[in-house]
């Protein structure tokens, strides 16, 4: 079954309702026993004597979607997953809001958990996405650690 690149980008924050809907959709798949979900949330870090109030995300979208597709295929190859979903915000996401949603499902828990963690690491490291931290007073480019 050949898969095609899917859009992973969402304009603005990812709502809890979207997450609930995504979970709900999996109730039809009765061979799933375990879901693992990772959510990235924007922190109100102190920066340059000010505080982060939002992050504005931009991406090299075509490259990011191609890369996300490669990562998807590699992780599906490595782990017997039933489902995998990746969503990343573009544009402004306020502190306390969700900017990344990674969701894996499988028959048994170990596979779902390991695959989700690997996806999060690869997404952070390999996707050409940039966050600009908008401070109460100024702005600064986010650096991933």
């Amino acid at each position, binding site marked *: 079954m050949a898969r095609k690149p899917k859009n992973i980008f969402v304009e603005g924050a990812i709502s809890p309702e979207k997450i609930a809907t995504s979970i709900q959709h999996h109730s039809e798949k009765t061979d799933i026993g375990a879901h693992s979900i990772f959510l990235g949330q924007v922190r109100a870090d102190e920066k340059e004597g000010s505080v982060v109030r939002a992050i504005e995300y931009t991406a090299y979208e075509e490259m990011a979607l191609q890369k996300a597709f490669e990562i998807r295929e590699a992780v599906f190859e490595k782990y017997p997953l039933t489902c995998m979903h990746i969503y990343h915000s573009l544009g402004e996401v306020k502190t306390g809001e969700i900017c990344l949603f990674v969701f894996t499902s499988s028959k048994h828990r170990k596979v779902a958990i390991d695959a989700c963690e690997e996806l999060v690491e690869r997404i952070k490291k390999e996707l050409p*996405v940039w966050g600009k931290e908008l401070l109460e007073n100024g702005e600064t480019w986010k650096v991933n650690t």
Partner: protein
Amino acid sequence: MELFKIKAFGLLAEKLQASEFDFPYHKDTEQLLNALKESHPELQSSKFSLAVDKNLVQQNTGLNGNEEIALLPPFSGG
């Protein structure tokens, strides 16, 4: 003479004050990088990678002038 259309992202787009700009053809990525740094000194103090046709360049790569070139600062998604 062909011109590259070069994309710049994040901090680099800000520094160069452009998210896309034209630049003269060079025959490989090493020469292109050197020329870019010469004409845009603000790139010399920046950490960035080069992507050719949406793939990160790991070593010097020949160019024919039709490639999509992009300047990518360190990723900070998620």
